[in-house]
């Protein structure tokens, strides 16, 4: 661990200016991932700009009827917000499936979105990793990749994004508010993350100094019928092996609308648009759900130790959508 400086600015513009203008400066949220990475030597910032005291910790109703969630809201607070629980249960469930009570008390919404992969090679500075040291190689392809990507990876990187929350946000079509050195903008969650391609060191499309200030949930009435299912190697306190966030709108036995995202299968929270398209107007049956997810999985490129994720995803998506269909029929 290397020495670093620490600042706690009181306004977002100042924080952004500092990080944008200072080599080696990074934002610090709850620190539940960054501080670990600093101990491991994966991250070696010179300056931590603590953004947890900025006025970004509220949850407000938007004019359109959705919710605007401040980037500094703690995961535990967001999970128990009555509006989230009633209108977006998938998000509450995803948050509560993540980490531990202590970590959720610290972790912020913005930090959760920007956490790094838990690929074992990324976290070990004595080994090659294209994400950490571009061009050094990816030992995961022949080494441990049991929990790495089957979708969206490249020959350079098959890391998975570890967040549960982001999977729910992907399904809900969340919009990310960003303040940068040149002003504020919004990006869809899909546009926030990027696939590794030949630049696996870039997890997101954010520029240096870009600060996530809020996440906006558009109104989505049928998200009241939504669910998050996390499959993991132990009953609690483990990253997902596979997770599914889904919202389903069924009318007259037909799928009127559906949102589906899959976690722990790709370098990004994987919005399953192909499966969604395949389901629109189709009967809300287990067979149709399975056919749709299998269409999504047609692009899967599993390796030896993670091939089991293909049938696992197929099973879990089918089960979650069937459960939602049963409860809304």
């Amino acid at each position, binding site marked *: 661990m290397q020495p670093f400086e620490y600042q706690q600015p009181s306004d977002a513009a100042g924080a952004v200016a500092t990080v944008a203008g200072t080599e080696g400066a990074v934002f610090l949220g709850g620190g539940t991932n960054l501080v670990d990475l600093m101990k491991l030597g994966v991250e070696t910032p010179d300056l931590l700009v603590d953004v947890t005291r900025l006025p970004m910790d509220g949850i407000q109703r938007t004019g359109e009827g959705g919710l605007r969630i401040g980037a500094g809201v703690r995961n535990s607070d967001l999970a128990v917000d009555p509006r989230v629980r009633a209108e977006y249960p998938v998000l509450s469930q995803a948050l509560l499936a993540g980490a531990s009570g202590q970590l959720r008390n610290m972790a912020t919404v913005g930090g959760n979105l920007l956490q790094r992969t838990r690929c074992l090679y990324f976290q070990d500075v*004595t080994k090659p990793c294209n994400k950490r040291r571009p061009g050094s190689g990816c030992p995961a392809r022949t*080494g*441990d990749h049991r929990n790495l990507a089957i979708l969206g990876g490249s020959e350079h990187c098959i890391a998975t994004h570890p967040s549960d929350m982001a999977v729910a946000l992907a399904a809900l079509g969340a919009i990310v508010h960003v303040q940068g050195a040149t002003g504020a903008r919004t990006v869809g969650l899909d546009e926030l993350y990027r696939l590794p391609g030949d630049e696996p060191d870039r997890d997101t499309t954010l520029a240096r100094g870009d600060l996530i200030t809020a996440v906006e949930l558009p109104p989505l009435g049928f998200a009241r019928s939504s669910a998050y299912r996390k499959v993991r190697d*132990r*009953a609690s*306190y483990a990253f997902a092996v596979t997770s599914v966030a889904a919202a389903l709108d069924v009318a007259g036995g037909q799928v009127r609308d559906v949102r589906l995202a899959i976690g722990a299968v790709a370098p990004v929270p994987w919005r399953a648009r192909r499966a969604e398209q395949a389901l629109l107007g189709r009967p809300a049956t287990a067979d149709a759900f399975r056919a749709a997810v299998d269409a999504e999985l047609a692009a899967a490129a599993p390796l030896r130790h993670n091939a089991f994720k293909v049938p*696992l995803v197929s099973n879990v998506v089918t089960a979650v959508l069937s459960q939602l269909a049963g409860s809304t029929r």
Partner: protein
Amino acid sequence: MTALSTPQVPHATRVDGPDKVTGRARYAFEHPADGAVYVWPVQSVIAKGEIRNVDASAALALPGVLAVLTPDNAPRLSADDPELALLQSRAVAYRGQFVAAVVAASLETAREAADLVRVDCVESSHDVTLTPDHPGLYKPAKVNPNFPTDTEAGDPDGAFAAAPVRVDRTYRTPGEHNNPMEPHASVARWDGDHLTVFDATQGPSRAATIIAGVFGLPADQVRVIAEHVGGGFGAKGTPRPNVILAAMAARAVGRPVKCALSRQHMFAVVGHRAPSIQRVRLGAEEDGRITAIAHDVIGQTSTIKEFAEQTAVATRHMYAAPNRRTTHRMVRLDVPTPAWMRAPGECPGMFALESAMDELAIACGADPVEVRIRNEPAVEPETGKPFSSRNLVACLREGAAWFGWAGRDPSPGTRRDGPWLTGTGVAASTYPARAMASQAQASVDTAGQYQVSIAAVDIGTGARTALLAIAADALGVPAGHVTVRIGDSALPPAMIAGGSMGNASWSWAVTDACRELREQIRARDGAIPPDGLSARSATGDEIGALPDHARYSFGAQFAEVRVDTDTGEVRVPRLLGVFAAGRIVVPAMARSQLIGGMTMGLSMALHEESMIDPEFGDYPNHDLASYHIAANADVGDIDARWIDEDEPELGPAGAKGIGEVGIVGTAAAIANAVYHATGIRVRELPVRLDKLLR
């Protein structure tokens, strides 16, 4: 006849409980030392080779750095144990081996400087993969601690070939790491040629002797203090590199030195359970009576030290069979040396044997409880020795009754509850019951206050509380009149907290000393002289005179599992263990030990695996985020009970020891239940969801 006793309400509270929950209890690293500085190791990033050069210039240039120890400048040691011969050679035997160390004024500086030490190595190709047909397989001269490598009686191959029912299966257990909650830590201080260390150890007496040997000192010039220890599970049974490094560094810089290992360090240098490949053959009559039993084990050790785990030894005494064989073969790989981990030998071995017993019951169409009972031996099968006490059958029968085993439908994969399939399984437990020579002192002052001293140690088991109960009982006075001092090698020497021998050994010495003191007091009609009275015991002669009998504790474990057919996830809503382990001294603490062992067994069944990375030669899942142990949510209704067992030989307490028997058999009970639930037999631990997806 034995009877099942209901565990009592935990009324005996831990004597050190208030200190622990208020933070007053000091663990090794927390002991203050004036002017203490910190040492942080540098680890090898190759698995095999030779150090060419260590460039410490950048580290030494960092303000606060006091010294960089390297193979060139480190104090010379006289370690018999190659794992303790730190920085004594340029050879690298495994990835993660300590190859240098930085001493600095702060922990943070030492850690930062360690990253700046450049170690240039000539790398050789390495081999870290255990295979059943490895060309390096050899027969060790003995297996731990001193058992014959192989045993054979009758004609096991012939009898197996002729048996009407045959089970011939290979089971595998992965590497596992002990992972006590408290990482290994030491504080070392030299006063001339006298060394004092606060150490996270399971045995102050043994640690002092070994550390003295490493530094070429008389044993009485090393004092090891371990007031409180946060678990060990065998990993702290002998001194580890942390204490040697602290003492070396303290000698090098002339100041007290603190050393605390990180969780990641622990995966390399404090031992682990080696993986095993075990072929079990059971030949039986149609009714399940075994005619041939063969257990052939392949294990691994490092290139610098042989640690031959005694994986098949439990098979030597579990079941009757006229024709039998056990063998152990080893491979030396470029890995850290394996070491003791809770029930070494019995734990992985009984996973294989007790899985095979389940397969035998199924092959015979017999109940798995009954098949075990049908093979109950009258005497120890290989030696003909009588058992001092053996109540496996009682554990099986009482356990079956408590669990509600009767009427179980044996057909696999048929009980459905929504997406879940449910099933139940049983397995036997066993562990040797032994005691080792220990000494204790008991004294009383004119105020009627008693003090009992022994270099025992409480690694979280409740030993301090149990010894107080035993001492008060032997002295015939209320516990409030007695103080027990433990955790210091300056006290009368004692066995380690290991091998399930701690309490059996210590309670023997404590009882002897207390009885002797009581005799002295009685002889004086209760008149205590101004200087008080004192009595000292030594149990070596009594233990040496024990009859040549077979002594073991036994148990039966019953598991109920649910397997999600969509995901393969396994849950264990119910786990019951019934044990016969001699006298249970303090029920509350015994229950804690037994369900702790069973929980660790559940963890072994479902979660634990030290993955070895063939390319780099290390354990890449070297933290508790990626090396999974059971979380609270994985443990459902767990219960441990015991039968009242009279163990006439093992000392005045008649306690067989309960530290390890609880982990033995759990994994098989769960895997057997998973088979019953799903029809899928998992013979390679852990039973993870991908093995159950269909």
